[in-house]
């Protein structure tokens, strides 16, 4: 197995497409860094996902999509050029939904075709349900939703997060003490799990580099934050309640060998939404990074269909 280059694999100075505009949206003192690319009547908002990476995860999408749409990205609170609050409650789903709305407001975007990856898919579902007038279309990529499908508990939840463990092998690396000792080691393990496909070294290197731009305490705060379906027992809507409130066209994209979110979750969401699903056979959790051409074409097609239906 090739050893990951870690931080050496991070972004070089030259980007394929520079933003036309950038700035900060500020919510309760937390600054969110956004970028805007291209112009046109239809905006595509590429939502952030877990703050272990930031908006550069969309680097293979932006240049192409910006040829056809106006594209907005932003760094999640906790990574990139956005602020890193320390209180877990600051990373609650409700905050992440509000961040997306703040960026839409700040960039003067009434409505957008929104793309949510993994955790971002969970945020998108809540955004589209709460504010249908802002979401023209929704693409869910490997949405990290907890739907009762009788699936085994995800491996990352097996080991206690807060306790010092004897082992630091495999998913035992998903542990705050290990993160404090060697966040890069966890990140490398984690992204190798994410990229289930052979020949994904560059994707792993990139992501490890982004992970090292945040820090163990911030990441631990994101882990401790309340989220939809976290089992805390507070009253909240179910996935099907939320899906019923989504009024825009939707599309689910999911890799069939995703080891982070079982692809049956994506199929179940598509069924709840009554929307088409595109399965990437042999694809892992991050098909946008590993299979960018197919992914980009699907998003463009979807965006154009949404735009056409409105015309």
């Amino acid at each position, binding site marked *: 197995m090739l050893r990951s280059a870690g931080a050496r694999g991070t972004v070089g100075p030259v980007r394929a497409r520079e933003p036309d505009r950038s700035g900060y949206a500020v919510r309760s003192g937390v600054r969110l860094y956004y970028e805007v690319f291209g112009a046109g009547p239809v905006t595509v908002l590429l939502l952030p996902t877990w703050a272990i990476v930031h908006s550069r995860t969309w680097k293979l999408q932006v240049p192409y999509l910006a040829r056809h749409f106006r594209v907005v990205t932003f760094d999640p609170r906790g990574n990139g050029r956005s602020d890193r609050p320390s209180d877990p409650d600051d990373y609650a789903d409700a905050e992440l939904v509000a961040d997306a709305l703040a960026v839409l407001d700040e960039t003067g975007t009434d409505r957008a075709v929104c793309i949510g990856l993994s955790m971002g898919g969970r945020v998108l579902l809540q955004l589209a349900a709460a504010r249908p007038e802002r979401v023209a279309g929704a693409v869910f990529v490997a949405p990290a939703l907890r739907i009762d499908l009788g699936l085994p508990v995800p491996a990352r939840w097996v080991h206690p997060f807060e306790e010092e463990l004897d082992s630091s092998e495999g998913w035992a690396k998903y542990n705050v003490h290990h993160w404090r000792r060697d966040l890069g080691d966890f990140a490398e393990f984690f992204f190798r799990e994410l990229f289930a*496909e*052979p*020949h994904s070294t560059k994707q792993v290197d990139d992501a490890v580099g982004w992970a090292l731009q945040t820090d163990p305490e911030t990441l631990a705060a994101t882990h401790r934050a309340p989220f939809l379906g976290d089992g805390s027992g507070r009253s909240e809507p179910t996935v099907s309640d939320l899906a019923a409130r989504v009024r825009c*066209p939707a599309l689910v994209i999911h890799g*069939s060998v995703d080891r982070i979110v079982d692809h049956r979750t994506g*199929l179940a969401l*598509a*069924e709840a*939404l*009554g*929307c*088409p*699903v*595109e*399965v*990437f*056979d*042999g*694809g892992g959790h991050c098909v946008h990074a590993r*299979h960018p051409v*197919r992914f980009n074409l699907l998003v463009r097609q979807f965006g*154009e*269909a949404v735009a*056409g*239906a409105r*015309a």
Partner: protein
Amino acid sequence: MRAREPDDTGYAVVDGVRTYYEVFGTGPTTLLMMGTFPVVDGRQWKGQVPYLARHFRVVTWDPRGNGASDRPTGPDAYADEVYARDAAAVLDATGTDAAFVVALCSGIKWSLLLATAGPKRVRGLVAIAPGVHPLAPHPHPLQTVDQQQWCGDFAGWVDYHSDVLLPEPHSSKVFEDLVGWSLQTDAEVIGARTHAPLRPATDDETIEMSRALTCPVLVLHGSEDTCQPPERGRRFAELTGGQFVVLDGVGHLPHGRHPVLVNTLIREFVDMHTTRSPQRSAWLFARERKRRVLWVCSPIGLGHVLRDLAIARSLRERVPDLEIEWLAQPPVSGVLRANGEIIHPASAELASESAHWESEATHHDLHAFYAFRRMDEILCANYMLFDDVVRETPYDLWVGDESWEVDHFLHENPERKIAPYAFLTDVTGFLPIDPDNDPREAELCADYNAEVIEHLDRFPYVRDRSMFIGDFAELPDASLGPGLPRVREWSERIYSSVPYVVPFDPAAYRRPAALRCRLGYGTGYPLYVAAVGGTSVGRDLLELTAEAFALVRTEQPDARMVMVTGPRLHVDELPDVEGMDKRGYVPDLFEHLACADVAVVQGGLSTTMELVAARRPFVYFPLANHWEQQHFVAHRLDHYRAGVRMQYAATRPPDLAAAMVAAQRSRPAYRTVRRGGAAKAAHQLATLLRR
């Protein structure tokens, strides 16, 4: 033959005038193919219907004044408003609440009126060359049927009118279709329509109605359209907020002349504006894919499939992890299935080529060129099916054995090629049968050849391999047409040659006496075997052969004949002759031919070449007017110094009897058929599949 028959037909009636409609396919989304100016009927959509009906429910109708619809008199009966009412009546009669409308020229006005009367009925509009007159002036309006010079010459006007609508080269078949449909009506109807009351009548009304259209609109307009200036299309798109697509170099009838493009645009448009039922589609990570070939095998004769099977076997030895799927129809698919091959399920949807050829053949006469030309609709339908199939599954290679539909439409639409493609053939041009008495045939053959030559010169990347089955010396040295190269010279430039593929090892048939004993014939007497293929076309030839054999018996009293009638003819339909054994079917027919002292056969390539390889004397009758049998096969057999060629129409029983006896006394001195054809072809295909 039509490529797709309607599932339902009927009449919608408005004020006592009947409008004939046809319905194809099923599904939640209906496409109404609008009628237009009554120089055509609903068949103008023949290039669209088979494909669109795979995906949608499709309704066509004949505009009053043409086709199977009534022909009322007077301009008022042909008013725009009346046609719009006919369209609404067709929707009612077919139980269609709302439909996507595909319309041409005047049909766009009727679509506007239909939408104005019931906005919810029109879900979307594909407007081809919209005839919305007031929107832009026409610099040179077309001549009308009632102008002085066409008085009393409706056919002359039809020629003129059809010609100006089709400025594209190589449009002879579309032109002929158009003339044919136009001649289904007359000057009175066309004159009445020409003076019918118009709606929308004014600039303002046209603008108002176009702006009021709320459904999505797609406008297609040829840049060379002489009937409707492209500016009208542009203005119409602007007013309706629709998408405007200019088709460069295209005339007034893009759906007739460029069906693949128009079909895919229509489908994309409708797909974009319908909420498809939730569906799951899968894309397989490229490195996980199996090595897969789609093999398109022509159903004309069984020769293709036998050589394809031989090549496929050899290819599998070279590329062991290969999976081959066949797109093939009966009888070829039956042979493939019997050999354990995988038939692609979409094969069941192929429009029948075999039925077309049978419908074209009479009395040992098949005008193969005209029959091929009349197969345009089937070829288009089957290309579109292929186009769907290769987009549903990624293939590593497409192989086409005389896959004329794939070859033609890929060169017409080279952007549709998404995989390596190899083409095999044993015939490399259209040669006229009777240039002296049928100059039209000579002209059309030359036009077809010119188009193929242009295609291959302009888009050399469409075919990754072009294989001619045989040596170039086996090709006739004839001209492909005035100003065009000669067959052999051109073929040498385009094709690589692989030896003729015989589906057996000729060495196994070198001892006819042993074979005769194995088949129970014994030896010591002259054995004649006659077989003329599996269709009823051969009946006349069998009757002639029976009479000839009776004469042979007067000279050779111990001679015997085995006559194989094939599945379509009952043995009782043929006369009884002393010494002649009639059989409906024999398994492994070829072995019986291979041990005959003389075989009497038709002029098909496979059977005759098998006799050459087995070195048996034979008399053969090429089908009259069959350019391939008369030119290509005949020349090839001459090259091998094999066979006695006779023409059915000029042969009396004594002539045939004499030829049979002479052949029985001859010692074949045939040129040897080179071996290894299948391996050589397989090698070429393998280079496209692996390094």
